[in-house]
């Protein structure tokens, strides 16, 4: 079972993402912000990280930079949950080392479809 770390400061988004992924048979761990995600990531490894961009404490871009500096996460797929209006954020996320992005708003089916692009 592939493991996924889902990072979002919004509880409703987290619940939706988590519910969808668990339903599809993934092992999901949730984090409220970049710092919490980083702390969790240091203790174990994940097959995929899904992260929101705008978050308090540590934003998604900083999280990606920090994760890529951890040996375990050098090649791990990291997808950013971004919005259409934040066009330049995609570039910023990519530059920081993100694998790709999912544009909000998305529905559960789109989420699963996108995830299948990076997980077997």
């Amino acid at each position, binding site marked *: 079972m592939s493991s996924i770390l889902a990072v979002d*400061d919004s509880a409703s988004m987290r*619940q939706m993402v988590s519910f969808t992924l668990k339903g599809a048979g993934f092992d999901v761990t949730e984090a409220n912000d970049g710092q919490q995600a980083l702390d969790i990531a240091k203790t174990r490894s994940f097959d995929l990280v899904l992260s929101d961009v*705008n978050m*308090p404490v540590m934003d998604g871009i900083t999280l990606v930079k920090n994760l890529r500096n951890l040996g375990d996460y050098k*090649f791990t797929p990291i997808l950013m949950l971004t*919005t*259409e*209006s934040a*066009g330049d954020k995609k570039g910023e996320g990519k530059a920081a080392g*993100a694998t790709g992005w999912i544009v909000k708003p998305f529905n559960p089916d789109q989420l699963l479809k996108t995830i299948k692009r990076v997980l077997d």
Partner: protein
Amino acid sequence: MSIDLSQFHQVFFEECFEGLDVMENGLLELDLDDIDSELINSVFRAAHSIKGGSGTFGFSSVADFTHVLETLLDDIRSEKRTMDKQGVDLFLLSVDCLRQLLHQLHAKEEPDLDQANQLKLKFEAILAIGLDGEVAEVNDVTDVNKDDKLEVHDGIGYWEIIFKPHPEIVQTGNEPSRLLKQLAVMGELDVEANIENLPDFTALDPELLFVKWTLKLRTKENKGAISEIFEWVVDDSDITITWIDESVIQETITENPKDTADNITSIKENSENKVTKKVSKPKASVESQSIRVATDKVDSLINMVGELVITQSMLGQLGKDFSMERVHRLQEGLIQLEHNTRELQESVMRIRMLPISFSFNRFPRLVRDLSHTLNKKIDLKLSGENTELDKTVMEKIGDPMVHMVRNSLDHGIETPDVRKAAGKNETGTLTLSAYHQGGNIIIEINDDGAGLNTQKIKEKAIEKGLIKESDNLDDDKINDLIFQPGFSTADVISDVSGRGVGMDVVRRNITELSGTVEVKSVPGEGSTFKIRLPLTLAILDGQLVRVGKEIYILPLVSIVESILVDEEFVNNVGGGFEVLRLREEYIPIIKLYDVFGVEPDSRKLTDGLLVVVEGENKKVGFIVDELMEQQQVVIKSLEANFQKVDGVSGATILGDGTVAMILDVPGLIQLSGIQLISNLKAGNNAA
């Protein structure tokens, strides 16, 4: 797989309302001369989350409106635009508007989009000025493969894709083989790898990629679908996608632009229809049925339950083969059980406790708006925002507090010129503070205004027949008269306060919460309203008293002292009342056995005890036969289980299973009709 998104709505709405509070507070805190970027960021983040969530959960009206707010906020935080006072006002209006929209959606009502559309136009007008180049640029980025989508080939031929990933591509988590797999799904794929750049084995860095690919894809899909697969790697590779034609026939189909135009007009008509539909006023509020609890509180609860289980199994073990030698172990176990139960009770109570900041948070906005309306300069200070209070108490204290704050701003704090003339700072200060004292929470509302006009209150009270000219009352007692029903000193009912509800309603509301309110005022220096509330409504620290065979419970907080009566100081004041002269005061004596019609041990005053209690700033003494133990009691509502009984605020079940009434001190004072006597003071004013 289809998932019902409505299961996340409750959390989503709560999150939105919290986000709106964050936005509102952030906007109010904003210092326009020196903009705090973290503050703007937090406002932006809140708007961004609301937009993202509302889009995801299908509330497009909210998402559309929040989108313009977010765009402008993004420009402000990246310092492309500046924020001015009009801007803050506009954002605040939008927060109100969003709150209303969300309340309507939460209550499953048709949202009233009138105001949202008007505000949206205003934002769009602001966004249209300048920066148009940038906006266009962003649009370009968001739809990279717009042109590609249009490129469709329906002849004989294939797509040739030359894919040259940069060596570092794998370090972004992109695996080229996965991309190839996705392409293979689209049709017939022919893959040719070019490894000419591959270095010597000794020089090979396993973290870099040196392979290039030339791909032939035979598919009905358009170029857009192909570039979509590469969308995450366009910056990390060189990609060319070209159509290799193997036939003479080549057709280019373009989308019919007329279709799109039709769609737009029909949407417009639709939204206009919605706007003209007038929607009834939003319901006051949708009661929040859930409560957000800090994890540590839940952890401690789980911990307690764990200990309880241990104690239970220990006692269970003991019960299996019990003999009299082990009685001390039974006692120990029972003490342990009592300990566990109490801690468990406290933990559960703590779950209902919320920091009073939930209630305080609405005041910065209120003060800002009101000081604007009143043309006064007012500084609001908050302290003790983290003081915790029961959720129900908090919800019910909100309105009385708003009323008192309005009063302080309207009648208390003077206009800048008056203040200046009095030698005070032009800016008045209103302080809201909260702290714990004993088993109570104290909330103080303090202003540095003119203070209460004691003389005017006295005149008014005499005019209304509340007191007599000859009554010898000290200033505190006079000031307390503002809490009497029908009392208002405002010569002109102003727009801000003095609309309908008076301070008597404030006191009644607070009394219903088993609390008290009093006022202290110094002419020229200001006044302080002090609200004292129990931490919770579910449990009461009670003093058990016995009258004959009946046991009653007095709230411990209301008890001042308990004394033996010395007949020498008891006077009969007529009407069947007796008063006790206690130090400088006359304390009216209420005989509980008369009020409730029970037979006491003795009807002689000196045989019993006098419990002096205070309620609504009045002291009275209850004659009881015996003071028993003090204990926490769980309050059971009489109204819910039986009917309202005057002089009794509720009931509880004692350890032996009997029911005891909890006495309502202010209610008993009223019941016994001794209101005015209690205002009397012995001798001269002795404050």
